[in-house]
Structures are given as structure tokens and as C-alpha cells.
């Protein structure tokens, strides 16, 4: 079976057929994968990089937020990029790193989860999803060594459970469960400092959105690659919440209100952040 390319239709492939889209594509159409190719020696020109993602738990769920900036060296490559995505109904992921590969990895991961669900007729467990994402990050390791790294942050809720969980990754595919809150990307150091001071147990959903936005504002304040909320263009971070009824995107109005609250508060105080 190894090495033979078959149509993917019976008679076909009774043996060794798996429920994983990643495995299937790796075997049959490896060219479709975002990673797994041998790059020739040479230096990579500047490519868009995604930056800061924050995630935190709140009462009854988990939230993830990402700023809207992609940078290419010292240039701003995009002000509109979206770096937080729903992975399936009960989980979300955010990506930092080389945008081109990361966005394809997100697409691959979304198909992977949906594919499993359709083939097996049941959802993958949250741990299972986190492990599959780790496998993808690890598959990207050769590219990461060339400077094209992707570091995701994964959050979700086990179907029927009441609390959300967070998983972070390193470029080798190492998977670490995080408690309370976490952040990845260039502005993560500053965002994490902010989260440590702002996060409280049992935050309400509304407060959690405000905390995430404020952490991103703090990250944008000190990290040039992180974009703050753009009041002129009315661009707000992309924020998703996951509760036991599924993942939903926080509305533009709610984000505008959260940003306005923080901006007003800080303008009145007139402090150095």
C-alpha cells in the first residue's frame, strides 16, 4: 500500500484507513499540506507574521482574543488580519507566527476535526483535539527551523463540562495545559503581565471580554508588532467565547463598548498606563 497513490475510493483501501484527515492527506496528497516540504538553502524574504493572542477562562467558559495586526519586518502587512478562529463547535484556536502557514494550518485543523466527526459519528474529545493540533505543529518543525514557525493557542470546553481549558504549544509540538490564562506571540510578555493583574476567578463573560481587550491594549502599548484597537477605522480585536452551548464571536458593538470603557477610564486617570 505504501507508495501507491490510489483514487481514495473502494475497492480501494479497506486496510489502514483512518479517521484522520491529516493522515489521509499526508499519505495521498502531501502537496496539499501547509508544511512538510524541504526548503532549499537560502534566506527567506520577509513574510507576514501574526502576533499577540490572549486567552482566559471565565465562569462557564473560556475566551480567546487576538489583535488585528500582521507585520512584515518593520512594515505593517495587514491591519485587518484575523488570527482567532473557531476550530469546531466547542473549541477555538489562535495563531502566532508565519501567517501564511498558520492560516492554512487552521484550515487543516478545522477540516481534521470535522472529518473525524463525520467519519466516526462522534466528536473528538478536547484532549484528542489538543493532541492533533500538537501533531500538526510538530509536522511543521522543519519549517520552523527555517524561521517559519507557527505557535498556536488552543482553548475549548469538553462537551457537557462546565469549565473551559487552555492548551499552549511550543514549536516541537509540545503541548502544555495552562491554567487561568495564557498568551502567545510577540506581545505576549506584556499581555501576560496585564492578565496576571486583571484576571480574577469567576469573571463574568462581559468582564472577561474587557480583561482580554485591556491585555491586548497593554501589549500594543509596548510591542510594536501588536496592534491596538483602531478607533478611526473602528477595528476591534477578534474575540471568541466558548461556553457549553458552543463557540460564538463577540459582536462588534460589545467590543466597541469594551474599548470605549477602557479608553475613557484611562483618559480620565491620565496615567502612564
Amino acid at each position, binding site marked *: 500500500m505504501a507508495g501507491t497513490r490510489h*483514487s*481514495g*475510493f473502494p475497492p*480501494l*483501501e479497506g486496510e489502514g484507513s483512518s479517521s484522520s484527515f491529516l493522515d489521509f492527506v499526508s499519505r495521498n*496528497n502531501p502537496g*496539499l499540506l501547509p508544511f512538510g516540504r524541504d526548503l532549499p538553502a537560502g534566506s527567506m524574504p520577509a513574510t507576514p507574521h501574526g502576533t499577540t493572542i490572549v486567552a482566559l477562562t471565565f465562569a462557564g467558559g473560556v475566551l480567546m482574543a487576538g489583535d488585528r495586526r500582521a507585520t512584515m519586518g518593520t512594515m505593517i502587512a495587514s491591519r485587518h488580519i484575523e488570527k482567532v478562529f473557531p476550530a469546531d463547535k466547542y473549541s477555538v484556536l489562535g495563531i502566532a507566527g508565519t501567517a501564511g502557514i498558520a492560516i492554512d494550518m487552521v484550515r487543516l485543523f478545522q477540516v481534521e476535526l470535522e472529518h473525524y466527526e463525520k467519519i466516526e459519528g462522534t466528536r473528538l474529545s478536547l484532549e484528542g483535539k489538543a493532541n492533533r493540533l500538537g501533531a500538526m505543529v510538530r509536522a511543521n518543525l522543519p519549517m520552523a527551523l527555517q524561521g517559519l514557525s507557527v505557535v498556536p493557542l488552543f482553548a475549548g470546553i469538553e462537551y457537557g463540562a462546565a469549565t473551559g481549558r487552555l492548551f499552549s504549544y511550543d514549536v516541537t509540538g509540545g503541548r502544555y495545559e495552562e491554567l487561568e490564562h495564557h498568551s502567545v506571540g510577540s506581545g505576549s510578555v506584556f499581555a501576560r503581565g496585564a492578565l496576571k493583574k486583571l484576571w480574577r476567578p469567576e469573571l463574568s463573560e462581559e468582564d472577561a471580554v474587557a480583561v482580554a481587550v485591556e491585555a491586548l491594549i497593554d501589549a500594543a502599548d509596548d510591542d510594536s508588532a501588536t496592534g491596538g484597537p483602531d478607533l478611526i477605522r473602528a477595528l476591534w480585536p477578534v474575540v471568541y467565547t466558548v461556553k457549553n452551548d458552543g463557540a460564538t464571536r463577540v459582536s462588534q458593538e460589545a467590543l466597541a463598548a469594551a474599548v470605549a470603557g477602557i479608553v475613557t477610564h484611562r483618559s480620565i486617570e491620565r496615567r502612564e498606563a
Partner: protein
Amino acid sequence: MSQQFYVSPEQVMKDRADFARKGIARGKSVVVLSYRDGMALVAENPSPTLHKIGEIYDRIAFAAVGKYNEFESLRQAGVRYADVRGYSYDRVDVTARGLASVYAQSLGTVFTAEQKPFEVELAVAEVGVSEAGDHIFRLNFDGSISDEAGFLAMGGQADAVQSTLERLWVPGALLAQALHWAVTALAAPRISTGASETGRIHLLDATTLEVAVLERNASRVRGSHRAFRRLGAADVAALLASGKQPPTPSPA
């Protein structure tokens, strides 16, 4: 090497077709029909886990009759085909027509080249933006393919089921009504044969039915790109109860 008797190709094909047809007729029927807000796929299936109906892609569903292991491998192959295609092009580029034609090729190849033909009959359904945009493809064990308008019945005593649907089905029905038609049609063979002996017409109930729908407005109503939704036994029972009353068109 042993000498083989000459058998004419006509006879070979006829034998294979008879073999497959017998296998398919032994099972229970499946019905696919369009209604106002989507398409319903209804199977008589006492097992809650061994499904005859499955999701293929955003707006495409699959239904099958015959041998479970054979149509299950075809269903999985269909999911792989659709997911690879949607991943390499775009989600909107996965169509029921494309899927049905690869199924037809696959079934045709197996029918002529393999030891034994597949004892399956498949339906591929795609929900459109309006009822006129719905597609139902019927795929036979020999790879022949046909495009059905509005409804389809297959497996078991398919003729009796199909003729009942022909009599009942009109476009624009609500789900409860469509489900009631489907159940009536599925029970039709039993009414014509068994009822006279027992003296009691036993309609199918929620526990022996497998029901799924492709919702026309899933993206707008549920915010999901996936139109396929399985209905639980409680939902089916409630719909069957409401569908029995005379049809009064009211917003569901």
C-alpha cells in the same frame, strides 16, 4: 489450469445484477424528500448507532441501503473525497454532482471488475437555496446514476414506497408533513401485505426510524455552515404527532 465453461457476457451481467438486486431488496427502505425548509432523509433502522444516513459535506448528505460494510466504506470514501476537494479548492466547490459521478465510477468499476458487485444503492442529496435547487441523485449497484426530482425511495420493496410518495408528495410542505409522508410511504409495503393478516396497521414510530435533515437556512438560523442535522427520537416523536393532524400551513 482448469478449463472454464463459456458464459456469455449478457448472462454474467444479468447474474451479477440479480445477485445485487436480491441483496438490496432484502433490507429495509430509505426515503429522501424535499420540503419547504430543507430535505429530509428517513430510514427504517432499529439500530441507533449503525447509521444508513450520513453527513458528507456542508449541504450534502448520503443515504444508503444494502450491506452495511459496503456502503459504510463508500460513505467514508465520500467524506474523504469531499473534504479533500473542499480543502484544496473551496467549500462551495464541493457539489453533489461531482460526488455522485465519482460514486458512479466506483460502483461501475466494482460491478464489472470485482468478484462480487456491491449490494448497495445510494442516494446523494444536496440542499439548495430554494426547493427547486435541491438535487437528489440515485446510484445503483452497477454504477448507473439518475437525477430524481423532489423525492426518492430505495431498498426493500422500493416500488411500493416510491409509488406511495408519488401519490402524496407536493412541494412546499413543512417538516412534520414531509415526515408523515415518509413514514406512510415506508409502511406502505407492510400495509399491502401484512395488514390483512394481523388486521392492524402498524405505523413506524420514532424508535425504529433514523431521521436527518439538511436545513436550507442553516447558516442563517444556526450560524453553521453545516446543514446536516440528525433528529433525536424525541424530536421525531413530536414531529410525527404534529404531522398526523390535517396540514394547516403555519410557521413551524
